[in-house]
């Protein structure tokens, strides 16, 4: 079977990667907002916990992108 860019599977893979890419951008926005809120209001431990959680979110999103890139 010859490879074609117009194969449905390939198109679905590209669309999936684009959507996950947007999700990565979104996780960076969440991280920026968490940082901004930490500056506005200083609550004990909250800022560092939320920063850690949002960094984990970014790492998971990037991992998913790489995972999708490899297995799809």
């Amino acid at each position: 079977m010859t490879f074609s860019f117009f194969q449905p599977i390939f198109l679905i893979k590209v669309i999936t990667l684009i959507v996950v890419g947007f999700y990565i951008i979104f996780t960076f926005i969440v991280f920026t907002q968490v940082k901004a809120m930490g500056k506005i209001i200083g609550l004990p431990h909250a800022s560092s916990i939320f920063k850690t959680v949002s960094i984990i979110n970014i790492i998971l999103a990037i991992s998913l992108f790489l995972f999708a890139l490899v297995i799809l």
Partner: protein
Amino acid sequence: MTDIFIAPVKSKQKNQHTTEKSHMHALSSFSKNPLGIKFEAQKKDESIVLFLRPHILTNLPWVSLGIFLIFFPLIIMKILPMLGINFLSSEIIAHFTTAYVIFYYLIVFSYVLISFLTWFYNIFIVTADRIIDIRYSDIVIHNVSETNLHHIEDVRYSQSGVIPTLFNYGNLYAQTAGATENFEARSIPKPKEVTDIIASLIGND
């Protein structure tokens, strides 16, 4: 000569609540004179009298939806084989299914995180000089408003519905003079007590 009228000394009693400092629980919705909290543009000698955020019960809708969304794929996985649909029939479909399930759970995780942040960072602070309303919504919007206490003309609260009455939370409205923005704190615990404290601060201002 006997005294006809002796004015009651109320101001000391009213200000008693402003002197006792207390440690605040991380998820607390109502805290008087909390320790360890600082906000941007806080003056050196400015102490926080009240720290408020919506009642913890207001999180119930997104918590319920979050729990449902966590278990939703498991329900689907039980139902689909009964209908003769198998998402693990071939290697390529199994790969797509795996990627989409992981992506789905990441979105659920983000939904829970954002909902929690929206509750956590919707804060209403009352200091001895002013009130500060910090609003955080839709992840890309955060708004900080403040007004001096002497700009506040009227402060009132409303409690409507069975659950707010039962758990003692409601909305607080602070009307400011002129074209200044009015303040509203939604679903805060003990709204009557908060109204009384702000009213006493305005009176003593």
